[in-house]
Each structure stands twice: as structure tokens, then as C-alpha cells.
């Protein structure tokens, strides 16, 4: 069995993922965090492609690009909507 070694492209993809994950955690604004998380998802897609796994890459692409942001954005919209209504009542 030939043992695969980490080629430079794979190292770059791993590096991007390692860089992206803390960025998502360190972003404080939820709306911005949703966007950063999307970019992080794309870096994971890149990693899957580089590791020759196109099927998980496609799944990751649609889940991180479509499904997950919707749930977060919808939740943010609702929370902000409540805050706005509250502000309006106070005024």
C-alpha cells in the first residue's frame, strides 16, 4: 500500500480551514458571523475537493451555502424584529 503524503495543495486547504474556524468563533455580530461561516463552509468544500471527495463537497456546498444560512438569518430577522418593535413601543 502506498502511503499518501500531504501535498502542498492539501496543506493550503487544511490551513484555510484552520484559519477559518477561529474567525467564525471570533466574529461577534451574528449577521456577520453567518456570512463568515458561509466562507468557512466554502473552505471546507475546497478541502473535500482537494482530498478527492466530490460527493461530500457537494453536500457541504449546499448545506453551508443554502440550508444553514437560512436558519440563522431567519432567526436573526426574528430577534431583530422583536428588538425593533420593542424600541418602537418605548418611543
Amino acid at each position, binding site marked *: *500500500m502506498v*502511503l*499518501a*503524503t*500531504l501535498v502542498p495543495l492539501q496543506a493550503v486547504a487544511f490551513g484555510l480551514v484552520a484559519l477559518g474556524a477561529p474567525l467564525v468563533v471570533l466574529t461577534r455580530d451574528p449577521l456577520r458571523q453567518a456570512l463568515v461561516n458561509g466562507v468557512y463552509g466554502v473552505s471546507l468544500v475546497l478541502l473535500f475537493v482537494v482530498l478527492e471527495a*466530490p*460527493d461530500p*463537497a*457537494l*453536500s457541504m*456546498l*449546499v*448545506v453551508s*451555502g*443554502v*440550508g444553514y444560512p*437560512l*436558519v440563522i438569518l*431567519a*432567526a436573526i*430577522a*426574528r430577534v431583530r*424584529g*422583536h428588538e*425593533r*418593535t420593542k424600541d*418602537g413601543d418605548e418611543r
Partner: protein
Amino acid sequence: MMVLGPGLLGLGSLFAWAMAGLPAFGDYHGPYGFVLNRVVVPLRHTTNVVMGTTFDVRGVDTMGEEFILYAAVVGVTLLLRDETRSKQAERRTRRLPNDTARLVGIAMVGGGLLVGLWLMAFGYITPGGGFQGGVLAAGAILLLYVVGSHRDYRPFRDVHALDPLESLGSGGYVIVGLAALASGTAFLTNLFGLGTTGTLLSGGSIAILNWASAIAVTCAMVLLFAEFLETYVVPLEPEDSGS
């Protein structure tokens, strides 16, 4: 600090110990991957080995996964669906004010649907499949809500049409399995002719199982979006119409 320091030290050393014991990068010991890589194309005529594995060699696993999704959608529906409230959501007719954004959005709806259908149809020939295509198609449909209005999106919020379709997808998978049982072989045995390798007429039952799961996943996602939209958008209605 007194607890955190030693705790981090302990966790760090255990983590380093675990990392040192991991197999080297790319070191694969499981025999099944190598067996499947050799066996699936000659035996099942599907050029995408992943699909040959998930819908045939491990077909029962995929059926379980499909029911996990089904159960998740049923859970969300039970939690969020409120029949009395669904009529109120019709009020919003405001559209995106920017024409360019709407035009690009509409192009993306068409493009997304097309790519989604392509992923579904060619799932067992090239990378893709029912799940990926289904989520993408559902996402394209959701984009219609973003660029259009509630009125444009209404057909896709009709849960009474979506519920049976979702069940048809999930149930269709089981029916294909039971058809094999009825014809005297084991559950989910590949029944139909295997066809020519590399064409849409290959893989036998895999093609039908793939379409069943594509329908199930698309409807599941559209149902989820519909339930979420109703829950999140409706409370904002009075404010939107007032401004």
C-alpha cells in the same frame, strides 16, 4: 485560574498523546474501500462508486438516513406549524426594490434548479445524487421568495401538497425494497436490469432509489423552509405593513 491551568495542561497532554497515536495521513486500513472500488462498477454498472455503495451495497443504511430526515421534518412541523396563522403571511407583497438584484436572483433560481436536477439525474454517473441535488433545488426555490414576494412563493408554501410528496419520496424507497422482497429475493436487492455502464439507464434499482430520495429531500427542505418562514416572518407583519 487555579483549576483552568492544570485542566488545560491535562487536556493538552492527553490531546497530544491522542494525536501522536493517530495513523499517518492517508493511511487507510479498511479493506472495504478497496473492495468496493474494484467491485461496484463491474457489478452495478454505476460509475459513481459512492452512489453504488449508498443505494445498493449499503442501501438499508441510506433508508435509515432518509427516515432520520423524515423524522426531523415531522418534528419541526409538529413544533412550528400553526394552521390558524398561515393565512396572515399572505399580506406581504413587497418585492426587492433593486432591479439588478432581482434579475440576478431570478437567473440564479433557474440556474440553481437546473444544476439541482442535473445532480439528481446524473447522481450515479458523476458525483452528486438525490441529497445534494434535492437541497440545491430547494435552495433555488427558496431564492424565489428572496427575489420575489410571498405571493410568488405561495405554491411552495402549500404544506398540504408537500406532505404527501415528501411521504411518496420516503415511502418510495421502502416500496422498491419491498418489491424485491415480493419477487422472492432479499430486501432492496437490485431488481431491474443493470443497463450500460455510464449511461442514465444503468444501475437498475439505484436510479429509482435515487429519484425517491431526491423527491424526499427536496420536499423535506421546502417544507422546512416553509415552516421556518411562516414562524419567522409572520410576527414581523404588523410592523412591515405599518411602515
